[in-house]
């Protein structure tokens, strides 16, 4: 194939397949440009940045079209830009959460007027930039995108932490966040380089296949040492983003120093993206697409032959002669039923690591929250504890992927674990086996369709429970932080003791606080209860009893400090010197808090739609 043809194919692939798939990201990029232009052309238009961001976020959500994924029975997986990004149910779900959060965040900042209106343009450029990075984290399929997404999400957050740049606590928070964050990113990058070097690829599915083959053939001592070291270092970066315990120390300081609105962004959006990335990484490694259990596939090479050819060519053009040989070698040895067992040690390692992280994070977060007198600091520890709860079902999902392969009938040893033996289910197997050259890469990168509604496996339900929890968590934490922000504007304090007697002045806000706090504990009839219930049922299915015990114990522990906030508002008598005259800003602030609390009740009674969507999104990742 000649060079012009290659260019033509690459262009066609980018323009007709890849670019349409990242329309939300393009909308966000456009928003950033518009924000910068608006500041330059119309500097006097005070509410301009708010409108531009609001419209941009709404447009991004509209072109993402999450409702299309609500009733698509089959999850579809589309690798774009020669495998750099992947668009599937999980990425659409996470990106919708992120964009919904962006919309609500703009409204919150508009209402609470942080920062001073003149800085609003800069604030939104940073926030939209961070959201863009988080969207890329949510759909990363290549280690380059993992690194880029994480950095794009982190860098604006460092600045956001110090957005009130003349306040001492704010600059200190930003300094700590930037130094710890950059250090964690550096360590993670070193770990990534080790992993990529040992496994010989940066493309996640390829990397997973290589790992399976390596484990099958038995790694040397040096290789296992490097793999362990690399994955631990990678875990450092992820644990930092998740604020999991050994790397949590930035969270309380940053949350206390930064405005409550930025705290909401860090605790909701940043964590959503990091958790999505964690799920993607561990599932890519422990359940490689080759062994997809529910892959009753109908990938015809005819269905999308042109893009396949294109990606294949583009890859060859990009990688020179070395890499394709490696991939072909791996394909020759691929269709074996032994591979799932070969991954068992990897799975055990990841489950152990995640369980340890979850147990320590959860317990530490809840215990440290007790002595806090500052509301934002208390919420920071609560965020840490919730990171622990959120890691639990991921560990469960990894443990459960091991249980899938033996259940499924192995037909002829070729198709590994196909759900329905009637249909020929070789997901990638035979297609990859026969053709000995570049064609194979094309088929690997080709969209893999999973037809028919396969019954959701336990592992899928575990991932679905994570997604459901993230959706509920968005509203719980946003409610808690927006109440803090509204109260800060009203009474000028973030100390819990200063909330005394609020119940007589603003009963509606106290009810909102109570609902948000009880939902964070996980009491019925609130959405937080369902979220915790799904998580613990996933843990039970995986028979990780230690996690269940720690999770249950921590839920009880957390009840007391969340209740303390409500108690401080209700029981002590109001100080007489304070009066809260009703102003328009305060009324709107209260209405906003009520608005974000309503979903906590609504999602409890109408949870089916969300759970079904989460289950579908989860099914697409396997």
């Amino acid at each position, binding site marked *: 194939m000649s060079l012009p043809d290659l260019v033509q194919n690459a262009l066609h692939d980018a323009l007709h397949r890849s670019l349409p798939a990242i329309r939300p990201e393009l909308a966000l990029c456009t928003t950033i440009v518009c924000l910068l232009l608006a500041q330059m052309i119309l500097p006097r238009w005070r509410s301009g940045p708010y409108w531009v961001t609001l419209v941009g976020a709404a447009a991004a959500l509209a072109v993402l079209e999450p409702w299309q994924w609500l009733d698509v029975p089959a999850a579809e997986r589309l690798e774009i830009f020669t495998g750099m990004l992947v668009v599937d149910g999980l990425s659409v779900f996470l990106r919708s959460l992120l964009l919904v959060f962006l919309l609500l965040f703009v409204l919150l900042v508009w209402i609470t007027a942080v920062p001073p209106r003149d800085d609003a343009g800069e604030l939104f450029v940073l926030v939209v930039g961070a959201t863009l990075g988080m969207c890329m984290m949510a759909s990363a399929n290549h*280690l*380059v995108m993992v*690194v*880029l997404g994480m*950095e794009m999400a982190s*860098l604006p957050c*460092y*600045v956001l932490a*110090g957005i009130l*740049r*003349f*306040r*001492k*606590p704010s*600059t*200190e*928070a*930003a*300094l*700590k966040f*930037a*130094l710890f964050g*950059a*250090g964690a*990113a*550096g*360590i993670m*990058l*070193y770990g*990534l*380089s*080790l992993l*990529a*070097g040992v496994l*010989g*690829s*940066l*493309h996640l599915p390829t990397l997973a296949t290589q790992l399976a083959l390596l484990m099958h053939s038995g790694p040397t001592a040096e290789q296992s040492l490097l793999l362990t070291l690399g994955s631990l270092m990678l875990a450092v970066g992820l644990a930092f983003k998740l604020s999991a315990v050994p790397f949590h120390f930035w969270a*309380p*300081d940053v949350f*206390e*120093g930064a405005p409550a609105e930025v705290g909401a962004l860090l605790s909701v959006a940043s964590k959503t993206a990091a958790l999505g990335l964690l799920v993607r990484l561990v599932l890519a490694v422990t359940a490689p697409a080759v062994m997809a259990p529910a892959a009753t596939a109908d990938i015809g090479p005819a269905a999308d032959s042109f893009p396949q050819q294109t990606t294949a060519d583009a890859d060859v053009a*990009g*990688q*020179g*002669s*070395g*890499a394709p*040989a*490696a991939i072909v*070698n791996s394909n020759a040895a691929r269709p074996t039923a032994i591979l799932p067992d070969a991954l068992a040690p990897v799975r055990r390692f990841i489950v152990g690591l995640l369980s340890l992280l979850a147990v320590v994070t959860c317990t530490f977060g809840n215990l440290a929250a007790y*002595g*806090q*007198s*500052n509301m934002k*600091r208390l919420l920071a520890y609560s965020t840490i504890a919730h990171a622990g709860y959120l890691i639990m079902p991921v560990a469960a999902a990894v443990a459960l992927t091991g249980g899938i392969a033996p259940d499924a009938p192995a037909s002829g040893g070729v198709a590994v674990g196909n759900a329905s033996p009637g249909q020929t289910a070789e997901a990638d197997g035979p297609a990859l086996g026969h053709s000995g050259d570049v064609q194979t890469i094309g088929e690997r990168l080709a969209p893999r369709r999973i037809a028919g509604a396969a019954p959701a496996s336990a592992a899928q339900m575990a991932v679905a429970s994570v997604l459901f929890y993230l959706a509920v968590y968005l509203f719980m934490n946003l409610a808690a932080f927006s109440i803090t922000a509204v109260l800060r504007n009203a009474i000028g304090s973030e100390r819990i003791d200063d909330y005394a007697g609020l119940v007589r002045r603003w009963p509606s806000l106290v009810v909102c606080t109570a609902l948000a706090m009880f939902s964070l504990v996980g009491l019925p009839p609130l959405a937080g209860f369902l979220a915790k219930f799904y998580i613990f049922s996933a843990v039970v299915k995986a028979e990780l009893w230690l996690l269940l015990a720690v999770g249950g114990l921590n839920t009880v522990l957390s009840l007391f400090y969340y209740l303390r906030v409500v108690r401080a508002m209700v029981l002590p008598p109001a100080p007489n010197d304070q009066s809260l005259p009703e102003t328009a800003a305060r009324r709107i602030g209260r209405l906003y808090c009520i608005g974000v609390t309503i979903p906590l009740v609504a999602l409890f009674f109408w949870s089916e739609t969300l759970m079904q969507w989460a289950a579908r999104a989860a099914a697409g990742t396997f």
Partner: protein
Amino acid sequence: MNPFTEPIGVTHYLCVGAVLMVCGMLCMFTKRNALGVLMGIELVLNAANVNLVAFGSSWLRADAARSIALDGQLLAMFVIVLAAAEAAVALAIVLCYYNTQATVDVDKASKLKG
């Protein structure tokens, strides 16, 4: 295998990378000046770069099949850009911190705790 008599291969580069990494970590954890910590972070990032370029080189590796080829060098380029961006942001923040507290000593950044 004696590394001093072997022809230069990936291993040698990995050793350089590891030394850089350890120096960077030491620098990060022992420096009290915020700028010193940033320098440590740069060292760690460059250690990763050395690794990536070495793994990506098709001449250094005997088994070309395992080479990450251009991907390694691509990521190294991105890391250089990221390091620049990170340095810009972190230095701006350090300057901001200096403006409010008149120091860049990270041990003095202890107003927030509890």
